[in-house]
């Protein structure tokens, strides 16, 4: 008698009632794992400097987060891996050349981490409430504050000990300043240019160069169902169409979408930055618009703007619109009664 009573006891709890092994920290660490190939390829091409810069970002992000949580007397949330992921993403978005002591630029990653973790994430109430992508705000802050240091790009050397490598321009920088002919000339021919871009053997931020490694990571996340196809596909598709239609010098429909898709931070942005749960809309239709907006703004800045690269700013601008987009596509509440205004329409 006693036993049956226990069996039929009602458990009252708030939703969600479906339980799974997925936790925040598990998702965060899986995303870190998905970033690993791109990070390793960055270390392969830019040497130990890349490793040091990323480690510095990760370390300072985690330290700032635990310090802040200690100061405001909150439960430590360092174990959930979100601070680690922010640091990793920030590091992968910085140029490896920042690891230099004359001129001294090692403080830049530390300050960028502070801006990312404390101002962009914790001031807004911590994980889940931040409006902007912390890593991107950190990078944008660094780019505006130290424009010179943030645009010194190392030539990829593929030797681990390359401590004082030559500097060069990124493919997008060459494309902006000198045009496509010069870009092809630098890399030999078109096929070789594509090969370099695909493998990641080109100047750029630590983690953005290797298209193939980023694709592996992105598809892994897609396979694990941690992200959906909506944002990346809308992002890359819109960018490709605009690059094809308006990207060419000889008129419409002569642009080369592949160069634009494989250069700059396009892959890193589309797969890992724009798909951030917190700062992107959660409704599917809103996600499509969000992705398309990112792609369009990226190409607008690349083709017409003052900066050679627009992925970071495009995602940040669309981050501002994410709460609005979610509002606009709010699903209808089942059984809700129409208000007088709606009936009138």
């Amino acid at each position, binding site marked *: 008698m006693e036993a049956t009573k226990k069996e039929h006891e009602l458990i009252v709890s708030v939703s969600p009632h479906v339980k799974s092994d997925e936790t925040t920290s598990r998702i965060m660490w899986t995303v870190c794992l998905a970033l690993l190939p791109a990070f390793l390829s960055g270390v392969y091409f830019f040497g130990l400097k890349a490793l040091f810069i990323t480690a510095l970002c990760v370390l300072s992000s985690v330290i700032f987060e635990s310090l802040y949580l200690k100061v405001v007397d909150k439960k430590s949330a360092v174990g959930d891996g979100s601070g680690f992921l922010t640091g990793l993403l920030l590091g992968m978005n910085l140029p490896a050349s920042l690891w230099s002591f004359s001129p001294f630029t090692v403080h830049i990653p530390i300050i960028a981490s502070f801006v990312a973790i404390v101002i962009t994430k914790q001031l807004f109430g911590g994980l889940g409430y931040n409006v902007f992508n912390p890593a991107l705000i950190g990078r944008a802050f660094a780019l505006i504050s130290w424009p010179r240091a943030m645009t010194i790009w190392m030539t990829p050397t593929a030797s681990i000990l390359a401590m004082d490598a030559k500097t060069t321009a990124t493919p997008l920088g060459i494309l902006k300043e000198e045009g496509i002919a010069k870009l092809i000339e630098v890399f030999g021919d078109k096929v070789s240019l594509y090969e370099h871009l695909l493998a990641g053997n080109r100047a750029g931020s630590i983690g953005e160069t290797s298209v193939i490694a980023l694709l592996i990571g992105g598809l892994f996340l897609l396979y694990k169902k941690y992200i959906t196809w909506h944002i990346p596909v809308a992002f890359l598709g819109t960018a490709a169409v605009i690059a094809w239609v308006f990207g060419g010098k000889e008129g419409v429909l002569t642009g080369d979408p592949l160069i634009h898709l494989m250069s700059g931070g396009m892959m890193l942005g589309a797969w890992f930055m724009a798909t951030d749960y917190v700062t992107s809309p959660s409704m599917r239709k809103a996600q499509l618009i969000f992705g398309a907006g990112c792609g369009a703004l990226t190409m607008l800045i690349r083709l017409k*703007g003052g900066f050679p690269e627009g992925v970071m700013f495009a995602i940040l601008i669309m981050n*501002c619109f994410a709460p609005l987009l979610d509002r606009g596509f709010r699903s209808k509440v089942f059984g809700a009664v129409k208000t007088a205004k709606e009936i009138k329409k």
Partner: protein
Amino acid sequence: MGHDFTKLFELIVSASLINNFVFTRFLGLCIFFGVSKKMETAVGMSITFISVMMISAAVSWVIFNLVLVPLEITFLQIIVFIGVIAGLVQVSDTIMRKVSPGLYYKLGIYLALISTNCIILAVPLINAEEKYTFIQSLAFGLGSGLGFALALIIMASIREKLELADVPAPFKGLPMAFVITGLIALAFTGFSGLITL
């Protein structure tokens, strides 16, 4: 004619997005912070703001080019524009009290403050400075109004989202609004160098 349309389009896009008054010149912050707490007031203020802006741009263009310039008293432009704007705000104030009393009380003091809003004054002054034609002045006023409306609505959506967030006590409310505005401005720097007028 095609060239004119491009110019008008550029004016609207430039004033509303690229050189957004709130995010790149930090004008009009008083109303911006005051009414962006709730989406309803933000939308109401946007509509009022755009209509006042358009009408004041048109009226001040007429007065500037047909009265001040022929009489060579353009040094009086600031006083004259303020008078025009104050009159228009009084009109919209009266209309709103009749048409939508609820919104009128929600907007409260900020409705009267439109008359001293820097964007509304800046637009006729810039129109006079740049010697825009009548249509261009209207386009510039529309762009600026749309830009302000955009800023208000984005801000309201973000602040409503943060309503439930665990923001540290000293930063609750206005301080956080300033932080958000700074970060949006950081994002909008991406537009720099896009269209130079």
